């Protein structure tokens, strides 16, 4: 097998792994902590904000896994994970009823009890409260007891904190997927607010911390964040953002540890830069730190994988910058999943005898594929997006004036459909656009906040390629194809 073939296999393996690891933790050595994410792992950062695909659920799962934690502690000391850290999951996808109440249980509980009592009960379980609490077996019993015995809760919390301290341990309780707390904003908001309040309360202990992963739009909702001292919580907020160097470092970290082609990739790095990554006792390789942040070195390395140019000359750009440019949304964000989706497709599309691991035409195709995946991700998180975007599919050329979009929505009765499905409590629109009371322009504001559209010169609407291609929108240009 040639080096190119081996590395192509490594790209396939690495990109496939990330795709599955969003909820279940993948192999520890495929973990990469970008410098800017180190703060998000620090137990002291209670709020962690990130767009869809930025890695909220990824870190939620990774932190909860002892083997992944160990790898991070060893390889990325800057994340400052305490040595003796107990991690529990207090809400998120795929938990058992012993760990956390699910949405159904929450819904029943919320009818009788204060949201804060519910989340206190969750903390109490994971902090190992002693006394009569131990005997309570259902969430309803626990929440009921907590709400009835506020003083006892405070004492028990303090006792748990002392126990952790004398054992030299810390406890971190993780919360994810707040949009699944309930079926609609009306029910989600009080639960989310209660959770943030409890997360703030436990900061008064020495050894117990919460970490809440959430989308930016949730933090912009007044009905969730209007409580005393919220600003204290916000001050320690961390953001999961992926800069270009972070994405490539993640790729390289995974390539070096791929079962097939990993060794070839490692020697590529060693030959080109005279750098050997560290290996831990289990044989996991870590990307040399100079390769993590130095974009010019990364570019040289990526040239060995994908070549110098997106074409036969450099006029169409360099793969290193081209790829990320074409995946950026209107907020200049790129999700690692779309990045890997593009590379995975590129590896599959490149013919087996191609001289380099990746063919630039494969990368072009990969961007198309990533565009579709991005649309899929966003419509999963925001189902109303499908409703407002489908009428525009292959039916609009950008940049356009807002009235052109509003005209299509009017013809199609899009907003009426949205409202009627909302009234019918249809799950497709369980979380409607927040600014819909402002009509079409409000919807455009919501799309803009999601990074799906951009406003230019105040009046026209532009759409970044990552969405434009998947929706088949045209682009205005001066050179028309002659018929």
């Amino acid at each position, binding site marked *: 097998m040639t080096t190119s073939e081996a590395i192509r296999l490594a790209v396939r393996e690495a990109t496939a792994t990330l795709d599955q690891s969003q909820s279940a933790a993948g192999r520890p050595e495929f973990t990469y902590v970008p410098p800017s994410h180190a703060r998000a792992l620090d137990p002291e950062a209670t709020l962690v904000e990130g767009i869809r695909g930025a890695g909220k659920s990824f870190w939620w799962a990774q932190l909860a896994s002892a083997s992944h934690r160990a790898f991070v502690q060893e390889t990325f000391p800057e994340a400052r994970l305490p040595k003796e850290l107990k991690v529990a999951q207090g809400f998120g996808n795929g938990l058992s009823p012993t760990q956390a109440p699910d949405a159904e249980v929450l819904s029943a509980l919320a009818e009788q009890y204060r949201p804060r009592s519910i989340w206190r009960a969750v903390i109490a379980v994971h902090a190992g409260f002693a006394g009569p609490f131990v005997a309570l077996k259902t969430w309803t019993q626990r929440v009921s007891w907590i709400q009835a015995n506020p003083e006892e809760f405070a004492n028990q919390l303090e006792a748990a904190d002392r126990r952790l301290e004398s054992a030299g341990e810390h406890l971190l309780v993780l919360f994810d997927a707040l949009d699944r707390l309930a079926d609609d904003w009306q029910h989600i908001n009080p639960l989310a607010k209660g959770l943030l309040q409890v997360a703030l309360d436990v900061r008064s202990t020495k050894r117990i911390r919460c970490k809440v992963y959430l989308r930016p739009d949730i933090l912009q909702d007044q009905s969730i964040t209007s409580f005393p001292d919220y600003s204290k919580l916000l001050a320690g907020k961390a953001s999961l953002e992926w800069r270009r160097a972070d994405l490539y470092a993640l790729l390289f970290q995974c390539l070096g540890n791929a079962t097939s082609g990993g060794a070839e990739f490692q020697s590529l790095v060693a030959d080109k830069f005279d750098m050997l990554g560290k290996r831990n006792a289990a044989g996991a390789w870590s990307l040399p730190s100079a390769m993590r942040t130095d974009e010019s070195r990364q570019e040289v390395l990526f040239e060995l994988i994908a070549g110098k140019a997106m074409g036969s000359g450099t006029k169409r750009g*360099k793969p290193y910058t081209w790829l990320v*440019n074409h995946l950026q949304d209107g907020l200049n964000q790129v999700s690692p999943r779309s990045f890997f989706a593009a590379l995975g497709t590129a590896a599959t599309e490149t013919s087996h005898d191609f001289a380099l691991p990746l*063919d630039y035409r494969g990368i072009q195709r990969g961007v198309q594929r990533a565009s579709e995946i991005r649309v899929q991700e966003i419509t999963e998180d925001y189902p109303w997006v499908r409703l407002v975007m489908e009428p525009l599919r292959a039916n609009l050329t950008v940049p356009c004036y807002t009235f052109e979009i509003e005209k299509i929505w009017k013809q199609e009765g899009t907003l009426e459909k949205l409202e009627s499905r909302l009234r019918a409590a249809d799950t497709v629109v369980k979380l409607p656009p927040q600014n819909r009371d402002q009509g079409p322009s409000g919807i455009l504001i919501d799309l803009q906040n999601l990074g799906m559209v951009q406003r230019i010169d105040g009046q026209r609407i532009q759409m970044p390629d990552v969405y434009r291609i998947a929706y*088949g929108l*045209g*682009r205005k240009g001066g*050179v028309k*194809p002659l018929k």
Partner: protein
Amino acid sequence: MAGCTFNQALVRAALAAQDARLPARWTVGVVRDVYGRLRFAVDAWRPLADGEEAEGPRQYADPDEIYPVEAHNFLVAAAAGLQPYSGSSPLLYRDDFSNPALLFRHEDWHRTIVTVSAETTEDGAEAPSREISVHLLDRQITGQDWLRPPADAPVHPHRLVFFGLKGGVGRSTALTMVAWGLARQGKRVLLVDFDLESPGLSGLLLPSEQVAECGLVDWLVEDAVGQGDEVLRRMVSASPLAETTTGAIRVVAAMGREEQDYLAKLARAYTDVPSPNGPKRMGARMRQVLELLEIQEQPDVVLIDSRAGLHDLAAVSITSLADTALLFATDSAQTWMGYRQLFTHWQRRPDVVTHVRDRLAIVRALTPKSDREGGVRRFQHETYELFAETLYDDIPPGAEVESGVLEHVPVYFHPSESDEAAPHFPILVDWDERFQEFDPRLRAGQGGVTEAQIDATFGALLQWVTERVSGGGE
């Protein structure tokens, strides 16, 4: 009918030429003379008037090759509508030429696009504006070269043309700094001053006594009388600027060392020169001298200082010499208007557009340091809009549907605003007063500048050029 302007005349003629009532088997071309007057040209025989006898070669004409009289009359009426822009004999047929191929097969025939503005038709309906194409032979005094796609050039070193709409934006200084930077990388750089109207590039690179004996203008004059080769060997000198580098800077100046009568030569430099294959135009001559110099000097890179402004000489440099054309721009109304005129001119010729557009690169000259980030973003937005509206492809909705085959990845050329490799994405050259009256031959401390200062101002440009040159042509 209301009066008729230069622009309207072509639209009217184009509409008439493609009218459905005309027989489809002949393409009706439009010939525009130097005054803008139009004639219709049909590669057929003129219909005979009643009682007229056929004479000359057309006695033997196939009756099928005679243009129908109704169509003839239609075109005559259309020509009358062109008013002052109608030529004296408004229709040209084979009968009008001893060698009709000279007209009908002329190399300059091309399709050009005209916009028919929105109008209210006779039956009161609203017709939106639309674009139609017309087969045009444009007889101009100058200006042809803006629209002349290059002949296939033989293999040659990468040629970079430095162009600006006006002087004083630091174009020559930037060129000098790029030359020096490339020489420091060990490259052999050939520098050619095609700015004949304001020669002076050599002043930055050579002490006056080291300027070569002959200049480019001498070659243009001497070659016209068959003595070009004599001059060629005496028109290149080495710049001392490259002495401390591993490369070389070879300079071809516009004007020779002891020039006594430059204006007299310049006045003759642009003439077409007779040759056995017909008159040789300025564009072809510039290409020729450049190719000869490249053979003689064997450079790795050629840097060409183009004449500023919308002039033919600049057109030749950009459309037919350049592998890369660096378009210097400042954020001024003059810049935007000038480049829009230039790009719109190209836009009418799809073959020229596709050839030229990805060779272009905008250089943001004299970038102010105050509000740098915001200023650059606004500038980038302006350049994107300009390129998008004139030179980038229009992508129809639904056109980029996946085809399932790797080779069929969409071929539209329309980079996004933030695409760093796109022609519109500005390369920044900062404003720095040190370079306003700058002499690169002075050392730092004696009125010169340090390498660090040069890097700070021209580093981005040099890096861009280095990458473009090493990436090869396409």
